[in-house]
């Protein structure tokens, strides 16, 4: 942005995201405290944790969608608080959990809207913008769907459009909040493969995910959250020990990986006097 006062330049050696001691208070209630996270290029980092652990709040605070009451967040070395809307939009794309599916909007329209962060008000799309739009559709495997209305898509297709909208922002980081939560097995696998492919192309992906077996399979690294803070991080098999699962989720379970397949062996009914047999 040549017209703006030059702000702090991005630091190529800094991590894509560095969050330290982030806290969020909503209406006097502390939702999040002392949460930390680092994301580097070409990494898929998954945030896992029970319902209410603060996963979404943390991701939204990092992305500037939720006001933080404490801590610092840096995007490529630049402080979040000093970034203007359009600058931030080029540093990270946020893919929300529940897609809003408006009537009368085509796939191409939606991805064009995603590109609009690159335009000044009233400015039209350049050839570069058009290229970015069509490559976003291709990378999300939604090319050929351009003229379809969003309201006619399946859940998995809609989720891929959401990712394409995020990719059109041209940001080095994609933050996705539970993109597979409402998808069936096949669509979940398709979205997971797509995210892995994007990571191999150099994108940093921050994924909030519920399913521990899925998180272990797709993520390079996990961050575990419990009761409003980050409590552990590391490679999936090192972090997701039976002891940690028992402490955080209160369930006896074991993560099993074998020949590229992952699963969670869960003692579903053990320990409950009514359910035990």
């Amino acid at each position, binding site marked *: 942005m040549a017209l703006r006062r030059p702000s702090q330049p991005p630091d190529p050696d800094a991590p894509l995201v560095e969050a330290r001691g982030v806290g969020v208070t909503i209406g006097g209630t502390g939702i999040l405290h002392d949460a930390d996270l680092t994301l580097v290029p070409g990494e898929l980092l998954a945030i896992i944790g029970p319902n209410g652990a603060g996963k979404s709040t943390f991701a939204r605070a990092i992305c500037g*969608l939720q006001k933080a009451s404490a801590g610092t967040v840096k995007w490529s070395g630049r402080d979040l608080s000093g970034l203007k*809307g359009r600058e931030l939009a080029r540093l990270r794309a946020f893919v929300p959990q529940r897609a809003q599916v408006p009537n009368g909007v*085509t796939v191409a*329209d939606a991805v064009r809207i*995603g590109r609009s962060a690159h335009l000044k008000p009233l400015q039209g799309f350049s050839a570069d913008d058009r290229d970015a739009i069509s490559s976003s559709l291709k990378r999300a495997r939604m090319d050929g769907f351009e003229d379809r209305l969003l309201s006619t898509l399946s859940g998995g297709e809609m989720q891929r459009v959401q990712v394409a*909208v995020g990719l059109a922002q041209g940001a080095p980081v994609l933050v996705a909040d539970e993109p597979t939560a409402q998808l069936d097995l096949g669509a979940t696998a398709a979205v997971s493969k797509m995210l892995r492919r994007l990571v191999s192309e150099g994108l940093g992906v921050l994924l909030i995910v519920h399913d521990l077996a899925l998180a272990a399979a797709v993520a390079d690294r996990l961050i575990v959250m419990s009761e409003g803070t980050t409590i552990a991080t590391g490679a999936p098999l090192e972090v997701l020990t039976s002891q940690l699962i028992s402490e955080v989720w209160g369930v006896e379970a074991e993560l099993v990986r074998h020949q590229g397949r992952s699963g969670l062996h869960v003692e579903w009914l053990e320990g409950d006097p009514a359910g035990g047999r």
Partner: protein
Amino acid sequence: MTSRQIAVLISLLVALAAAIVASLALGAVNIPFAQVVDILLGRDAPGPSAQIVEVLRLPRTVEAMLVGAALGVAGALLQGALGNPLASPDVIGVTGGAGFGAVLIIILYPESIALLPVGALAFGLLAAAMVFVIGFTGPTGGGIGRVILAGIAIASLFAAGTAALMAAYPDRVPSAIFFLVGGLTSTGWETLKQLWPYFTFGFVLAAFMIRPLDRLLLGDDVAASLGSKPRTIRLLSALAAAVLASAAAAVAGLVAFIGLVIPHVVRLAGGTNNHTYVVPVSALGGAALLVAADTLARTIRAPIEMPVGPFLVVLGVPLFLWLLRKAV
């Protein structure tokens, strides 16, 4: 743009052009179309026909275009900003406020009737400002439900004031009716000379809100991801709509229907919800409909002029219902 959207655009342009020519040519005195064109191009000798077209009809036609376009745009902005198909200038209090402001002048200060546009404009904007203060301030402000409920409450307040004035001075009510149902008058350029800055501000701000409203279409989170603040988009869009609708009320009274229905007609006919299409085409559609309806209102029982409001409804409702049934 799809071929269907282009067809809708061209039809509306043709309809507007036809309505403008009819509006300039027809009336208590009918002037041949060719002569109207000559007068506009300055090729006709000065005379009574040129006087009628230039002094009486042209300002009125321009007023009708501006008011129709302003209301179409205001409705499109509000429906997009509030994500609600029932939104129109009524829901941010403008209609109720402008009605009160006009009736106040008509009933309490009939000797200062020249102040009517000022009263309508001022109270329309005052009502909208009250809605914005209640709906958009505070940590939880800016929610759609809160804005709409604040708007309905404030509109009721001003409607009660209007009703009280009418009840207190029943003998003066007839002079207020023309304003309350919406009607244009042939008063030359005076009103527009006062109000053009408001129309300009409203249309320019609306143009800047088109792309942010498209982002809002994909949800607040996507808009935020793209660096926009949903609350700011809603507030600025509603502000543009409030200014346009207040200025429109100052010119033509409470012309209902265009603000609510024209954007829906454009969406249904064009098969798209994109504001890049809906906002400008709603301006075109609103202008065409109001110019056509006003011509009808002036000529159907000439030389008596009827208020335009009811004619709009007669022209617009069948089209709207037909589209509504055709839509899936």
